[in-house]
């Protein structure tokens, strides 16, 4: 099915995971992310998309199944070890450090560079250059920013860590159209830099537009999948199918 034949960078095989023992949320999910591609993960509310990303990022221990990054099974790895392997999560909802300033928030995104303070400082400046609208907010505590401004800080904090694989959960929520469009352009730029992106988004149209390949989850299981053309062709039908209406 998969058009690209290079070795997948991230491979999820038969993952079963949940929050309480005996009640799995993910009930055997399979997924492959090709390097340098954007892979969409779609599905109705409560399908288990965020749970999947959290499991990949190490916040949840799968009770069975494998999560393979490159050629290493990272399923049992604690979350903070993921950044060393340059795989990073942008979680759903708010996740700034509210009492630290915007600059400090972004700086901490480069925690793995902590050995080299000069480089880190440069990287922070590079982020302000890349996201100029954050510059004015530089010394404000992140908790006092508006919802969209906080999301922007989070994205900058993600990017500064220079991850190879990005797990992104609803990047554009709360962003105004201009900024949202920028974010999608940014995702494409990240892809162009050779990074791999796993994108969860409710904005199906936007997601399909930039995703190379997309999976649909429903009730913690794989539903349908396909590449961009497959989805663009018959979006309405697809949407109706996921809902099982």
């Amino acid at each position: 099915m998969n058009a690209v034949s290079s070795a997948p960078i991230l491979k999820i095989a038969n993952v079963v995971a949940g929050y309480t023992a005996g009640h799995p949320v993910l009930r055997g999910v399979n997924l492959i992310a090709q390097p340098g591609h954007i892979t969409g993960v779609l599905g109705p509310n409560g399908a288990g998309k965020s749970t999947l990303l959290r499991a990949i990022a190490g916040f949840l221990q799968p009770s069975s199944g494998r999560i393979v990054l490159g050629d290493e099974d990272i399923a049992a790895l604690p979350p903070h070890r993921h950044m060393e392997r340059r795989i990073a999560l942008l979680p759903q909802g708010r996740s700034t450090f509210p009492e630290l300033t915007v600059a400090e928030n972004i700086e901490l995104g480069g925690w793995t560079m902590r050995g080299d303070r000069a480089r880190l400082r440069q990287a922070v400046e590079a982020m302000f250059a890349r996201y100029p609208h954050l510059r004015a907010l530089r010394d404000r505590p992140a908790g006092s920013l508006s919802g969209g401004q906080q999301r922007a800080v989070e994205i900058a904090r993600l990017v500064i860590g220079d991850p190879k694989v990005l797990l992104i959960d609803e990047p554009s929520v709360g962003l105004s159209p201009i900024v949202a469009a920028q974010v999608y352009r940014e995702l494409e730029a990240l892809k162009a830099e050779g990074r791999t992106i796993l994108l969860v988004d409710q904005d199906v149209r936007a997601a399909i537009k930039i995703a190379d390949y997309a999976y649909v989850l429903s009730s913690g299981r794989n539903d349908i999948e396909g590449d961009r053309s497959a989805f663009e062709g018959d979006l309405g039908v697809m949407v109706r199918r996921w809902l099982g209406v």
Partner: protein
Amino acid sequence: MLDRLAFIITDGILLGLIYAIAGLGLSLVLGIMGIVNVAHSAFIMLGSFFAFELFRRLGLDPIISFFLAMPVFFLLGTIVYRALLTRIERVSQSQGLVAMFGLMVLIENLSTIAWTTDTRVITAAYTNASLVLGSLYIAQVKLIAGALALVLTLLFWAFLRFTLIGRAIRAMGQNRDAALSVGIDVRRLSAVVFGLGIACAGAAGVALAMVFPFSPNTQIQWLAWAFLVVILGGLGSVANTLIAGLIIGLLQSLSTAFLPFDYVYLVLYVLLAVILVLRREGLTLVVKRAI
């Protein structure tokens, strides 16, 4: 009059420095980990006995013990963290508090068994001596303890303020998951924070033992002082803790001089009430989060 004022102020400042370090570790652990370490004063007491034993057995001066206490108690703190705190972080706040109280009582009782409840004092060469400036007598031991307290406070302040780890420590307190996802090893860093808190308690215990009598069962009085400092200073800010300690020390020496002594504490509590009415989280201005 002038030398009286000078006396009041120096005495207040020295006292305030000592109070400040009694509260410093507590403030740190509470502000960052959200854990009210009521066993704090028990660790202070252990610090005092640490100095006592080194003094009794090896004749080691408490000034040296002060610096020895930091690594030793840091280690102790990380061990306690691994044994207890990793679980406390997972239970509800009330249960965590109760567990910490259990720890306090346990330490107190084990110390009673080890050292009996006799009141102890450490008398070093300088303990009974004073610096005499005209009619002004300043106890040397307080000068030394005050200086040590200041050093400790500055060390902490610089650490939290200027190092990236310090920033990561603050970040961890604000959003644990986010800290994890930028790659911060939260468990390890929490152990460091708790270790630092206990190191601070241990060092404070040494400083207190230089100045005041101590015994395993009177440790709890320091809890009250530490609380006072923390409530006034707010959580997790070293500078504010220092300021709070100084305010309390100065207020105590001022009101001692001009009021009947038993009102000193009332004055302190009134001050506290005023602060709480004016700004609810002590001197620390916490960011009101956007809704």
